[in-house]
């Protein structure tokens, strides 16, 4: 069931001058959320901006009695709405509609799961890591940021027994360079008999590069695409992605309904990057 909650902000933890994690009281959404799904969010801002914004569900929160109490959002200040969300305090309200979209497919126990995240693209992977851990699936997070100050929740992933491959553009933490570096090395080192599931979320060029790299080694990648969305429900046809179907035909597919998770191999990347 789709729910629109006038969610109370439980806490706002500032991670850096750009990033914060906003915890929202929305048990109705949290209890049905699956890894990879999103919510459409609007702070109390009247008609400017007018539309909601899509956000991955970052964490499913539990209260002191271990009951599901809400969700959190990993937010990065880039525009008006994200700046407003950065500045909220406990007790403020945020309209929150969801859960929406197709989730990631779950890896099987016989598989390894690799998550590849760039920047705020970490957002869908915490809930996925929790789900993978509950299935005792061998998981690795390849996580890249500009510098050590831009990598968050590393310890939380470690506690979920997720293997970590960290990269920074300036070399201040982990591998110096892009996330595709350790990914390529790991693909080379992988035993041919290992079955692998790869997930990616981050800047479009990164997801494209990950898809290309994985394809060269015979692997699919589930990418989480972040398109501009009007409604999140399939009404407006704004958030389309060019998708190649079996037989070669290409059409625009709504990422809110048929995504945001797609097989990277099916995405016509040239049509996505402006």
């Amino acid at each position, binding site marked *: 069931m*789709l729910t*629109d909650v006038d969610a109370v902000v439980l806490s706002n933890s500032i991670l850096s001058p750009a990033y914060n994690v906003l915890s929202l009281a929305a048990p109705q959404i949290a209890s049905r959320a699956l890894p990879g799904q999103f919510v459409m969010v609007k702070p109390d801002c009247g008609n400017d901006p*007018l539309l909601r914004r899509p956000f991955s569900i970052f964490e499913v929160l539990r209260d002191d009695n271990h009951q599901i109490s809400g969700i959190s959002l990993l937010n990065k200040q880039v525009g008006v709405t994200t700046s407003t969300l950065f500045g909220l305090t406990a007790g403020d309200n945020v309209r929150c509609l969801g859960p929406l979209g197709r989730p990631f497919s779950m890896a099987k126990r016989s598989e390894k799961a690799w998550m590849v995240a760039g920047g705020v693209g970490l957002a869908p992977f915490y809930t996925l890591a929790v789900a993978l851990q509950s299935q005792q699936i061998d998981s690795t997070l390849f996580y890249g940021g500009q510098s050590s100050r831009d990598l968050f929740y590393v310890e939380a992933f470690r506690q979920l027994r997720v293997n970590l491959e960290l990269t920074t553009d300036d070399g201040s933490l982990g591998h110096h360079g892009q996330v595709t570096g350790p990914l390529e090395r790991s693909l080379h080192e992988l035993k041919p008999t290992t079955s692998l599931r790869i997930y990616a979320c981050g800047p479009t060029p990164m997801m494209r590069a990950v898809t290309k790299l994985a394809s060269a080694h015979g692997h699919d990648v589930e990418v989480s695409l972040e398109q501009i969305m*009007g409604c999140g429900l399939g*009404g*407006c*046809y704004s*958030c*389309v992605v060019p998708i190649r179907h079996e037989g070669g035909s290409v059409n625009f597919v709504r990422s809110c309904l048929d995504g945001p998770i797609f097989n990277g191999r099916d995405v016509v990347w040239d049509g996505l990057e*402006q």
Partner: protein
Amino acid sequence: MSVDLSVNIGSLKLANPLIAASGCFGYGVEYAEAVDLSTLGAIAVKGLFLEERAGHPPARIVETPGGMLNAIGLQGIGVRRFVAEKLPPLREQAAVVIVNICGSTIEEYAEIARILDDSDGIGAIELNISCPNIKKGGMLFGCSLKGTHEVVSAVRNVTRLPIIPKLTPNVNDVASFAVAASEAGADAISLVNTFLAMAVDVETRRPKLSNVVGGLSGPAIRPIAVRMVHECYQAVNLPIIGMGGIMTPDDALEFVIVGASAVQIGTANFVDPFIWNKLLQGLTEYLERHQLEAVSGLVGSLDLTVRETTWTNS
């Protein structure tokens, strides 16, 4: 006191005056999880051509103050697939369906109307002669009095379904287009479609929409839309479906008071898919507060009498 929210659009009777605007509600079925489709006055489904259409590449929307620009480009499944795939579930859910149609030629409009005339479960046809985002057809007809007359006449000749031309605001005198539609045999008119507009990214100096230009909707356009409905109400004796930036019950009431028998909700549905009950509740409360039995009694009730200024010395 119970109030009567039902309205008539020609021979089409609606349980209430709220209609989902074309292009803002998919084919209706997308919203079945959020809304009981039978509780809407009607659903104007996404504009249909005869054949499938790809639409424009992203970016298709951009926000502007109090509104948004769109250039979707009428991506759609074509009328035959609509009739085969979407109409049965809409019928099953007892939705009142207004099919919005668009053509590159007058013959295409007529051909689509013929197909719809043969189908069950259609309440009316809305003629999209006002889409600002396509190269051929659409607004090309709606910006010419002759084109408007010809499209409406051609469709009139092939169907008995109520015909509702949707007028563009991108003309000097919208009322003259209402008159042309009326003379050609329209049963009602709807207005306004979006305003042709543009936004530029100053850093890259590129247009923000792939189509360069798009249609502006949302609360930013509402006062202009209200004025245009007011002008059309004075010019023609047809039911009018008003729209343009309705977000609240008062917004809807403005349109009704200047002459709209029903209203369409578009952009607001993107912001709040549960808006329908809130609007119905607001309309009901207004009617009760003003001791009116029926919303139909409010249509065109704009008070234009000149008030004398009076005062008392105290």
